């Protein structure tokens, strides 16, 4: 696949993934977690990475960070470009200066992401000391500023994680991630473990920080509501592939891939009354045994016999809006049904 098909102007890219393939290899099987991802992120933009459990969202993020479980997880193919440098060519030592400084990650569960036996302030100062040439006093000052920025009084610098509530712990995790002002922030389900009112606070804060600092962001979530509120672009993942990619409004108003369409119909709506929810039949395919044809075929409500013949490729269905479905290629038979009718 050439970059052209990933349909965006090629200026101002902070991150570019080219044909990224990641496998988990064990003695018994090979799990094909990520299968040829092409992705580009412009500076200062927020990209939403959406998909169900096992779609490969977190694996992609760990791949970018160079944090795949050693021995088991391998980048089999492709390249990861950050600001014009291929991260895969860097040594572990060099990666350590990239992580935390250039790319930061917020993990899903704030309860386990913090060190329970170290005061939270020190955990922030630690990152600052590691990546900047500064004195201890300066690092402490910076940590206190960061605490204030995420809405926690700096006097609580010396307190331990268990003394904070879930929402506050997530703020501290965010403070650690942003302490060195990274160019790229990867947030992996940052609000999934939190209550809605706390989620609203955290999202508000993240949006504000993103506006002020111009940080580029990849937001991994399964919540389409969060995506609608936070993102500029959306990539929908299924079975290790990006099945749809485009600007937020385009993807929401005019979903191209049958999976995206089905996903919208399966969530209960606050505005509309529906008797029965639309169900996507079946399950996500086993990543250790993916079919040679379209991986969504078995669950697709718009499929035709052609779909079973080969694996679809990403096509630009309309300007800047890419879908991986043969509906948008000349191979699609003219008499096949279209439009997502059941």
């Amino acid at each position, binding site marked *: 696949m050439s970059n052209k098909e990933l349909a965006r102007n090629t200026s101002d890219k902070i991150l570019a993934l080219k044909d990224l393939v990641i496998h988990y290899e064990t003695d018994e099987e090979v799990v094909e977690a990520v299968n040829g991802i092409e992705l580009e992120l412009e500076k200062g933009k927020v990209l939403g990475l959406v998909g*169900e*459990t096992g779609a490969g969202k977190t694996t992609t993020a760990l791949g970018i960070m160079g944090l795949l479980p050693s021995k088991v997880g391998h980048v089999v193919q492709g390249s990861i470009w950050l600001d014009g440098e291929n991260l895969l060519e860097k040594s572990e030592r060099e990666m350590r200066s990239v992580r935390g400084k250039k790319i930061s990650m917020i993990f899903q569960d704030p309860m386990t992401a913090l060190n329970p036996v170290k005061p939270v302030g020190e955990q922030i100062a630690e990152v600052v000391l590691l990546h900047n040439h500064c004195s201890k006093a300066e690092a402490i000052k910076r940590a206190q500023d960061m605490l204030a920025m995420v809405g926690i009084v700096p006097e609580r610098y010396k307190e331990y994680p268990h003394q904070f*509530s879930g*929402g*506050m712990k997530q703020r501290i995790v965010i403070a650690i991630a942003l302490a060195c002002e990274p160019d790229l922030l990867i947030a992996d389900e940052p609000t999934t473990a939190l*209550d*809605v*009112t*706390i*989620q*609203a*606070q955290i*999202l*508000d804060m993240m949006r504000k920080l993103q506006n002020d600092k111009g940080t580029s962001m990849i937001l991994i979530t*399964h*919540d*389409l*509501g*969060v*995506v*609608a*509120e936070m993102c500029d672009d959306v990539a929908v993942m299924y079975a290790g592939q990006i099945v749809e990619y485009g600007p*937020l*409004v385009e993807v*929401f*108003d005019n979903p191209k891939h049958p999976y995206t369409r*089905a*996903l*919208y119909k*399966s*969530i*209960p*709506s*606050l*505005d509309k*009354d*529906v008797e*029965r*929810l*639309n*169900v*996507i039949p079946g*399950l996500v395919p086993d990543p250790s045994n993916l079919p040679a044809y379209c991986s969504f075929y078995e669950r697709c409500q718009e499929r035709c016999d052609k779909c079973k013949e080969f694996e679809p490729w990403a096509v630009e269905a309309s300007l800047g809006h890419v879908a991986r479905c043969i509906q948008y290629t000349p191979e699609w038979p003219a008499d096949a049904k279209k439009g997502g009718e059941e």
Partner: protein
Amino acid sequence: MAELLMEVKNLKKYFFTPRGTLHAVDNVTFNIEKGKTIGIVGESGCGKSTLGKTLMRLHSATSGQVLYKGADIASMDIKQFKKNYRSHIQMIFQDPYASLDPRMSVFQLIQEPIKVQNKKMPKAEVEKKARDIMEFVGLAKRLEGAYPHELDGGRRQRIGIARALSLNPEFIVCDEPVSALDVSIQAQILNLLQDLQKERGLTYMFITHDMSVVKHISDDIAVMYLGQMIEKCEAKEIFRDTIHPYSQALLSAIPIPNVHEKRERMVLKGELTSPIDPKPCCRFAARCPYATDKCLAEEPVLRELKPGHSVACHFAEKFMK
């Protein structure tokens, strides 16, 4: 007026901790009609699960009554409850990964409750019953010998539902049954629960923090905050006319998957205050943007503002549409 299946009157469940008395469920009164679904909404720590477990007698109530078809199941002898009522009232648990014994096969898991309740039932009959239930909830026969770790979340939750249904209950407490599931699987389970309700005339108490799910499945909704019920009405009504400031905040906090509708959001300051020895004031006052001195001095009671719509707020009239 439809037949009442359950009447909960002034139910309290306190936990006595070294730091003081934790008011998990505090003076809750409501009715559940037969064949209907009541949705209980609120944030973590508001007492929704404790309420569900107290109705089930998994916790014993501190005071108050739970009348099930007229009989007070909250105060009756636990042996008598288990013998006569346990099979009527069943529960579906939140986490299908944690609520199933990993060393039991699917078939054993579904037989277990039947065996416990009917000790003298012949083996063949138990097995037949379990098979019927499996078919009923959409678990394929080939899965009989499978163990929970081999199954995905949706199928595990079906086992949980099968276990609850195997005793032919009339009332099921569903404690966040879809929260741990992906959206496409969530839809399957919600549809299954609705079908079962239609076929068997089940009554549900549906505990969740997800407003869109509760709107979809419930007939009535009750919003809880720190152990108290603060708003109660028909499911659709709460979205038409949200009165309590907390309910308003809760609704406005939900991110809506619609890119054209940008709503004014009411972001609450702070977090839940402690439910340990709460002061006699409005429990939401600390976070409420409209709080006055009266709110800090006096505890509001749940009162009916218009037919079928009750709110616990001193200034409820002000927020009415």
